[in-house]
């Protein structure tokens, strides 16, 4: 039953996501509403998925599936997330010529892309509230580290895995050694 629920959750996620980050709002709301993950675990999963090979959406599926129901759960979640691939995509491959320049698909994406931008912006705020706020007040060291990370990414153009690794080191020093 749990596996079926997990599969269905990721079918929904798969069919309404269009690559990369657009999956995060969906994954976050499905995981938290089912109680399979906490809000800070959603942050962890994004970080872990970005540091390992493979597409973000499937890495999230594996992590969420493992947490909810072990290895079988991981496989089930992956199959759910890939469901558009072995259904819709096969149809598209058969009618390749027809899909080549489909006007409707372009029109749909004209609305879906900005919708994703809006939702992802919401996720950024959601995660900021979880990660920089502690007991109702801004946790200054965490917020400062976040600002430094943003500067490293946007100004110094460091790659995502590098920035995540640096933050891990900073975390060990600031929170582990210095006890901030």
């Amino acid at each position: 039953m749990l596996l079926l629920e997990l599969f269905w959750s990721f079918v929904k996620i798969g069919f309404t996501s269009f690559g990369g980050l657009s999956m995060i709002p969906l994954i976050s709301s499905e995981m938290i509403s089912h109680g399979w993950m906490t809000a800070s675990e959603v942050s962890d999963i994004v970080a872990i998925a970005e540091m390992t090979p493979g597409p973000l959406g499937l890495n999230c599926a594996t992590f969420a599936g493992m947490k909810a129901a072990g290895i079988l759960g991981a496989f089930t979640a992956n199959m759910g997330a890939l469901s558009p691939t072995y259904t819709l995509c096969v149809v598209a491959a058969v009618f390749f010529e027809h899909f080549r320049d489909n006007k409707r698909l372009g029109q749909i994406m004209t609305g879906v892309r900005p919708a994703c931008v809006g939702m992802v912006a919401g996720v950024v705020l959601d995660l900021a509230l979880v990660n920089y706020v502690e007991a109702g007040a801004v946790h200054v060291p965490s917020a400062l580290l976040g600002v430094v990370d943003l500067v490293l990414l946007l100004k110094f153009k460091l790659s995502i895995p590098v920035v995540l690794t640096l933050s891990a080191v900073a975390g060990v020093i600031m929170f582990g050694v210095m006890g901030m």
Partner: protein
Amino acid sequence: MLAKLYIQFLKFGAFTFGGGWSIVAQMKEIYVNREKVITDEELLDITSIGRSLPGTMIGNIAMFFGHRMAGFLGGLACMFGMITVPMIILILITSFYTAFQSNIWVASAMRGVRTAVAPVILSALMGMIKSAFKLPPCYVIAAGMFVLYFFMKVSPVMLVVIGAVLGLAVCEWYERRSHDAAA
């Protein structure tokens, strides 16, 4: 043939970090330049369709390419090849994560990493913005969906569907208007 496709995509899957574009580049190198089984245009078509269909872009591209090479089973071979290595790695990491979550050093490292997640998503969001606003009403859609998601807690599944419907409506409206203007 199936085994060959599976192993090739196993390699692709093992060496991609982040976005799917590095896989497209590797496919170009092997299948367009070296083996010459597809042309540049075909790969471009496969990529653009795989990207615009729902689901994981590289999963779709793998399925598409495999289907062209060896039918449905070929598609499955490529798809499963692509996900094998990332899935095994993630299963190992998740087990490790669950076991060591409460260890003070791991917990502090994860706490540091968490501070970087919002900036990482924000920086990627900047990249999405360029292609997201094709027509002026797109800004309204983005703002509206933000409010519905963040303040009203409407389900993202619903919001994507609303976005799709609005996209069709807005494009149709613009097309009709330019039609009328011409006539």
